[in-house]
C-alpha cells in the first residue's frame, strides 16, 4: 500500500542575498517526495533550512531553482491547501477562540450557523470547550497552540505544515500536545510535515524521518520509523527506541558540531 506523493521537491535550491554580494544558500539541490497521509518529521540542527522548505510548500517564498509540487502541480503562490502552524501561534489577538477557529470557514463564505457548528466540533476536538469566548491573550501557550491547530483543521487543508509548533511550550505540555497531534493524525489521516530539532519528538511523531545536514540544507538520511503504532509516550523506554535514537544521533552529531563551530567562528 504505497500512496501517491502529495508533496514533492525537485532539485530545489533556495538562496538569500544577505548584505551586498553575499549569498546564503539555505537549501541546496533538494529532492524528496511525501506520500499522502504520512507524518514526516524534518529533523536538523538550527539553520539547516527546515523552515525555508515549509515556507516554499506554503507558497510564502519561491525556490531560486527547481520546483516544489502539490499533487504534481508547482506551488507558485500562497497555497491554502498547505496549511501552516507557526511556532509563535499567529492567532488574531482581536478575535476570540471561536472567531479564530471560524476564520478559514468565513473565508470560504460559509453561513454563520454552519461556521458555528463546524468550529464547535474542532474546538471540542482540541479540548477547548468553554473557552470559545476567550481572547488568545487569556490563554496559556499550550492552549493557544491548540487553537491554531483547530483553526487550521477547520479550514480543512490537505497538508499540515508544522514549524516547530511545540518548541515554545514547557516539556510536559509538549508531551501532551504530541499525543494529541498523533490522535488528530490518526483521526484525520491528513499529511503532516513537522519540523523539529528534538530527536525524541521526531521519533515519537513520525512515520518517516528526514535527517537534514547543516547549511546548506540537504537530506542526509531518510529513516522509516517502524516503532509500533498507535504510539504512546511510553515507547521511549523500549530497547527498539534506544537503538533508533542512537542511530539518528550518530547521523546528526557531526552536523551539530559543524554548526556549533561555524557559529563560533562567525562571532
Amino acid at each position: 500500500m504505497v500512496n501517491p506523493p502529495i508533496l514533492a521537491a525537485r532539485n530545489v535550491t533556495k538562496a538569500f542575498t544577505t548584505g551586498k554580494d553575499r549569498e546564503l544558500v539555505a537549501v541546496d539541490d533538494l529532492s524528496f517526495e511525501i506520500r499522502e497521509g504520512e507524518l514526516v518529521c524534518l529533523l536538523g540542527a538550527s539553520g539547516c533550512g527546515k523552515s525555508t522548505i515549509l515556507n516554499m510548500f506554503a507558497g510564502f517564498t519561491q525556490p531560486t531553482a527547481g520546483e516544489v509540487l502539490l499533487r504534481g502541480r508547482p506551488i507558485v503562490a500562497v497555497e491554502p491547501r498547505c496549511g501552516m502552524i507557526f511556532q509563535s501561534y499567529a492567532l488574531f489577538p482581536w478575535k476570540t477562540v471561536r472567531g479564530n477557529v471560524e476564520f478559514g470557514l468565513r473565508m470560504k463564505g460559509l453561513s454563520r450557523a454552519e461556521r458555528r457548528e463546524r468550529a464547535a466540533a474542532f474546538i471540542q476536538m482540541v479540548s477547548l470547550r468553554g473557552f470559545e469566548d476567550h481572547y488568545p491573550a487569556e490563554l496559556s501557550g499550550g492552549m493557544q497552540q491548540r487553537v491554531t491547530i483547530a483553526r487550521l483543521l477547520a479550514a480543512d487543508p490537505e497538508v499540515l505544515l508544522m514549524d516547530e509548533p511545540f518548541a515554545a511550550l514547557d516539556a510536559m505540555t509538549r508531551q501532551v500536545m504530541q499525543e494529541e497531534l498523533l490522535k488528530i493524525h490518526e483521526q484525520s489521516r491528513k499529511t503532516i510535515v513537522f519540523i523539529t530539532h528534538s530527536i525524541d519528538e521526531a521519533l515519537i511523531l513520525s512515520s518517516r524521518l528526514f535527517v537534514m545536514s547543516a547549511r546548506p540544507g540537504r537530506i542526509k538520511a531518510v529513516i522509516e520509523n517502524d516503532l509500533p503504532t498507535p504510539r504512546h509516550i511510553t515507547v521511549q523506554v523500549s530497547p527498539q527506541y534506544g537503538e533508533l535514537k542512537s542511530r539518528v544521533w550518530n547521523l546528526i552529531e557531526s552536523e551539530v558540531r559543524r554548526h556549533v563551530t561555524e557559529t563560533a567562528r562567525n562571532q
Partner: protein
Amino acid sequence: MSQIASNESTVLSAEGTSDLLARPGRRRSRKPALLLISVLSVMLVLALWYFATERGWVSPVFLPKPGRVVAEAIANFASGQLLKDIWMSTQRVLLGFALAGVVAIPLGIVMAVWAPAKAAMDPFVSLLRPLPSITWIPLTMLWLGIGEGQKVAIVFMGSWIYILLYTIESTKRIDPLLIRAARNLGASDLHVMLHVILPGALPGIIAGLKVTLAISWSCVLSAEMIAAQNGLGALIWQGKDWGNLALVLVGMLCISVVVLLADKLADMLERLLLPWERHQRS
C-alpha cells in the same frame, strides 16, 4: 502670537508622552493615600491663591481673587453665554477633527501598505508637518473668510497630519506573520484588509486620535482668539481686552475641563471598541 504657538506645542508634547506611556485599556487604580496627597496638594495651591490675593501680596491686576473667578463663572453660566461658547468651540473641533480622521485614516493605511502612495505623499507630509496650525490663518482667511469654515479648516490643518502619522505607524507595526497566517487560511486582499490590517491598526489609530483631539482643541482656540465672535478662545480674548482677568481664567478652566471630559469619553469608547486590549499582557 508667539505665546499661542508655544502653548500649542506644550499641549502637544505633554499629551503625547502621557498617552504613549499609558497602555490603552488598562485602568489606572490609585492608592487612597496617593489620592489624598493629590487632593491636599490642590487645596494647598487654592489656599495659597486665596491668601496671596486676600492679603494683597499679589495685586488683583495680575491675579484676581478666587471669589471673583467663581462669581464670573456663575454669571456667565447663568446668562447662557458660557455654554454657548463651549458648544461653539466643541462644534468646530468635532467637525475639523472628524474631517481630518475621514481623510487621514484611509490615506495613512494606503500609504502604509502601498509604497508608491507613500513616496508620492512623503514630501508634502515633511513640508506640512512643521507648520503650526496658526500659520494657516492668513491663507484660510483669504480663502474662506472668517466664518465657521475657516475655523474648521484651521482645526483640520492642525490635526490631520498627526492622525496620518499615527495611522501609518500603527499599520506598519502589524505582525507580518498574521497577514501570512490569514492568506494561508484562504483570505483575499479584501479579507486581509478587513480582518487583519484594520483591527490590527485600530489600537494605535485610537491612541493617535486621543492625542490629536487635544491638539485640535488648541487649534480652535488659537483660531478663535484671532478672529471670532464666539467660542472659548474669543471669550478669553474678550476678557483680556476688557481687562477682566477673572473671565480669562474662567475660559481657561473651561478648556481644561472640556478637554479632560473629552479624554474620559475617548477612554470609554476605546474600551468599548477594543475589548481584546484589556487582556494584553504587558
